[in-house]
């Protein structure tokens, strides 16, 4: 792990890191293409916000490798269940949510399967995807994930549950309660903390007195691992190990501290020039997860400038298509305001 490293440790191995992790060149290329799509989508959402068409964007730029690396591990595993948070648009795409549904969900148009236009940021839950993203109340998903994991264990399923949250979220009493509970019952849950060292404007040193959040895991009786969260393959590796540990008879929870960056303001409502210096921003940009994966793949000759350009064009075309389609889609009928409040 090298939180401030310029170079991905995975690119220095003799055998390319992704192959030793069981990923083929094509799989990783596909993953990269998806990360390009995520970037184009995120930029488009921000642009649409400026035009007054998308009310809120919580940019994922800087945490794509964390969000997507976890999702790739969950998806290839096949029996994981996820409790994401608002910066996890990339996770949802990897799990199969379409760009169209993502766009519709952000605008609030009719037809998304998560919330029918009742929530922003595609929050809610869909019968089509193994995840619940009920709310944006920071920390609330953690004990829910623990309860879900306990349910899986009671029912004898081998499901492993992921819950993601930020460094700020780790200050919630509920985070402590959830980790404590999970530790007691050795539940199959992976706590994934995306540490971008900021909670809106509040820096890590005003959030906690420690450097590595992973240190806290010892207090709950399970391992805490610091991971370079801008390195997709390191995230994938750590997530796979956590899945294995969760299923181990003596195993249980893992705390993954994914050291990520925040390349954009907190949300589209934020102005980060009030609290970030240009130097700080430049440091973050040097750890752009997309650029790092690009460098890794180019270095191995798996990605070429031509192919890269093709991915970017395809991504733009796809995002253009879904932007037009979503803008032309109908709004939910006002009758959808009522009903479906109580289960019958």
């Amino acid at each position, binding site marked *: 792990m090298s939180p401030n490293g310029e170079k991905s440790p995975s690119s220095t191995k003799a055998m390319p890191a992704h192959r030793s992790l069981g990923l083929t060149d094509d799989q990783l290329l596909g993953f990269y293409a998806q990360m390009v799509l995520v970037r184009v989508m995120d930029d488009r959402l921000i642009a649409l916000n400026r035009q007054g068409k998308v009310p809120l964007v919580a940019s994922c730029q800087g945490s794509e490798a964390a969000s997507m690396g976890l999702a790739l591990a969950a998806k290839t595993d096949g029996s994981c269940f996820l409790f994401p948070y608002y910066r996890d648009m990339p996770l949802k795409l990897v799990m199969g949510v379409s760009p169209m549904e993502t766009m519709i969900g952000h605008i609030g148009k009719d037809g998304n*399967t998560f919330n029918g236009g009742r929530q922003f940021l595609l929050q809610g*839950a869909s019968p089509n995807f193994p995840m619940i993203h*009920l709310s944006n109340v920071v920390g609330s998903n953690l004990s829910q994930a623990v309860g879900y994991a*306990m349910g899986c264990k009671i029912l004898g399923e081998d499901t492993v549950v992921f819950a993601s949250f930020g460094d700020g979220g780790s200050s919630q009493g509920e985070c402590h*309660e959830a980790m404590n509970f999970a530790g007691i019952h050795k539940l199959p849950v992976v706590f994934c903390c995306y540490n971008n060292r900021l909670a809106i404007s509040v820096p890590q040193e005003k959030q906690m007195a420690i450097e590595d959040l992973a240190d806290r895991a010892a207090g709950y009786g399970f391992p805490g691992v610091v991971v370079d969260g801008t390195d997709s393959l390191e995230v994938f590796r750590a997530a796979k190990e956590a899945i294995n540990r969760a299923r181990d008879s003596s195993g249980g929870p893992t705390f993954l501290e994914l050291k990520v960056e925040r390349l954009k303001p907190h949300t589209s409502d934020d102005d980060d020039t009030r609290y970030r210096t240009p130097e700080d921003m430049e440091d973050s940009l040097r750890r752009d997860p997309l650029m790092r994966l690009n460098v890794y793949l180019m270095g191995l000759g798996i990605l070429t400038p031509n192919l890269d350009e093709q991915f970017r064009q395809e991504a733009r075309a796809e995002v253009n298509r879904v932007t037009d389609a979503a803008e032309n889609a109908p709004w939910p009928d006002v009758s959808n305001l009522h009903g*479906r*409040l109580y*289960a019958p």
Partner: protein
Amino acid sequence: MTVKSTIEAIREAMREELAADPRVMVLGEDVGTRGGVFLATQNFIEEFGEHRIIDTPLAECSIAGVTLGLSFKGLRPIAEIQFSDFWWYAANQLVGEASRVHYGTNGYLSAPFVVRIPYGGGVRGGLFHSQYIESYLYNTPGLKVIAPSNPYDAKGLLKSAIRDDNPVIFLEHKKTYRAVRGEVPDTSYTIPIGKAEVKRPGEDITLISYGLAIHYGMEAAMLLEDEDVSVEVLDLRTLRPLDNETILESVKRTGKALIVHEASITGGVGAEVSAIIAEEAFEYLDAPVSRLCGPDLPAMAFAPTLEDGFMVNTQKISDALLKLAAY
């Protein structure tokens, strides 16, 4: 039929549902070997095992959050919050999260769980062991809120709550646990959520209440027979959804309504009930809708004189009824 205390009826409801449905489980502080501080779950851990009867850490927020997560997975957890005074820690997961599950997922997910909460005063519990919390809960769309007054209702309603596919808050008045006894069938039965009950028919005044205060209301209604005033007593039983139909049917007949509860008057259930009557039955009224409620103070004070001053009782209710009768 056997005469049982309220706590015995509650225990019986849970035991029957635990035996009938393997998805039902219990979690909370001291619910295991201790059987709960009020013994609601006495001997459950021996009968149903540690995997279904779970002693949790002392942390109400996660008790509620874990309960919600279990319900997402299709289990039917019954959580116990030891005293109503400690439920605030759980408010985020119950009011903030659970109430929005079905609505916020456009009807896809539901949260089938029950949170049992002992509440109320008259037990010398002082400010932090006597709280009335129903006013904070009954105005939450997405939750159901039940507050039974007697063993028969407690058993039937708790069983309905456990079988319901929504988050249900089940408020148990601590003083009724042992003080209120009554006939309870030894066999399984349910009582529908959202239905009030006429405990006593009458013609001149409708007394609307719930929980412990129902019993004082029944005594007061009896006293007023001597004054030739016929009082109908209506037990709301469910506070959300309120049974508007039964309330209005009764008040339209009697033309007068007194709402009684121990929770503070401002914004209490009585405020809503009186608004419903004012809006829907104005032309039938022979007197202003009246309320006899707890004072606007944080909770019951400790000393017996102060506690008695806070509580409603038979005398206070019969005075209020007489005043209304004379209007």
